[in-house]
């Protein structure tokens, strides 16, 4: 029997695993341990035998009393490998962005170890959401770690409203409009851009994300939510964040144009 989750939402309704996860758990529970381990060690998500991490986590949690079972250790290691694979790696260059990524990666993996260890000692419903949407739950841990790391590093893009006009004009010359049009129309390109804006200073990555969601920079209608209002800055600052971000992204995707 697959034990139901116990965590409840604010309105009292329980967290439920998606139907496909619940059905797969039922099927996997009947497999011999060796076969289960073999299937969970598949890392290619497109493989038809791939076991989602929600299920791997479930079996680790359900085996919390298997102290002596080497199979259990193997399963735990597979789970932890997946956590590490879900976190951006630092490049070997050792620059500021890399060091920041490494700090975030360490903080998230440490937090996950802690949560899982506590859950093994005594069932802890904070892990329930990881059995519902594992990738998203890891992103929540990233959010916490990232905010702390940014704060500690003082990582921001402190633009004043008068940042130079000549830079703006130069940036405008490198076909920002075309670039933005590509972002909005090509889903594959959007994915690449999202991975790239992960490395930008917080204000720039937020601005780019909101632009990609179709938010206006400014509006004469006070009822309309704008980027400037949400970020608590002026319209002009938002334009500067956008231009700086686009300059970085255009240089990244069209390196020849920036030379």
């Amino acid at each position: 029997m697959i034990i139901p989750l116990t965590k409840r939402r604010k309105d009292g309704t329980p967290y439920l695993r998606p139907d496909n996860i619940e059905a797969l758990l039922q099927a996997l529970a009947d497999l011999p341990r060796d076969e289960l381990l073999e299937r969970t060690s598949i890392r290619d998500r497109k493989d038809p035998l791939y076991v989602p991490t929600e299920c791997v986590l479930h079996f680790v949690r359900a085996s919390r009393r298997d102290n002596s079972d080497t199979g259990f250790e193997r399963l735990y290691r597979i789970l932890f490998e997946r956590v590490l694979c879900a976190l951006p790696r630092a490049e070997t260059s050792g620059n500021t962005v890399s060091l920041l990524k490494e700090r975030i990666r360490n903080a998230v993996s440490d937090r996950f170890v802690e949560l899982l260890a506590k859950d093994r000692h005594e069932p802890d419903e904070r892990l329930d959401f990881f059995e519902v949407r594992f990738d998203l739950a890891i992103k929540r841990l990233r959010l916490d770690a990232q905010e702390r790391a940014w704060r500690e590093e003082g990582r921001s893009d402190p633009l004043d409203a008068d940042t130079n006009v000549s830079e703006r004009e130069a940036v405008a010359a490198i076909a920002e409009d075309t670039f933005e049009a590509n972002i909005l129309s090509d889903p594959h390109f959007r994915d690449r851009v999202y991975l790239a804006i992960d490395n930008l200073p917080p204000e720039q990555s937020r601005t780019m994300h909101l632009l990609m969601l179709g938010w206006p920079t400014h509006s004469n209608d006070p009822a309309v939510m704008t980027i400037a209002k949400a970020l608590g800055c002026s319209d002009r600052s938002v334009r500067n964040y956008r231009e700086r971000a686009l300059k970085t992204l255009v240089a990244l995707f069209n390196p020849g144009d920036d030379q």
Partner: protein
Amino acid sequence: MTTNPTPLALEDVLDLFQMEEAHDGDVLARYVEAHPEFALQLIDLSRLMATPELNDDAPLSAIDQSRIDAAWIVHKAAGLELKGGPNPLDALAGERGKALAGTLGVPRQVVTCLRERKVDPSRTPHPILKALGEALEIPEPYVIAAMRQASTLGSGRRFKADGKPGTAAQVSFEQVLIEAGVPEADRKRLLTEGD
């Protein structure tokens, strides 16, 4: 007379947001409008949700492999039930505690904090756990299990709690070093994870 509902905490707002069916610009705008104090966190979460999952097939580095080894030791220790009797850390009193302080190069009060289970093992570097295991002549998982065991001391030396009232207020090893006035260079040496 009407009463205002209790304001939601950040975690509750993010929980609600992540459970929405859709996460487009309109939904985000609605949340930011309703919870302007959490606007930045909502935007950051929304951005992370829009970021595609990493499909990293590259082999893990040696550092990652040792990280997994260390994680397994912590996890294994969490499954250990210490039998009755004294906590192994109690042995760090007197000469044994003094010797460990000398080995680590830390003030005695750091060892006292370890003995009193004031230090969170998950926030203690691996080499320190190893040194504790050697000093106490017990395997590392038992060191972690001993550190996790609730302290029997009802009063005495206390640090500011970093958790909610009522929860065990264990602190990081780094915090203990700072409180003990250990210089930054020594802290750096002691906080290195090593291989």
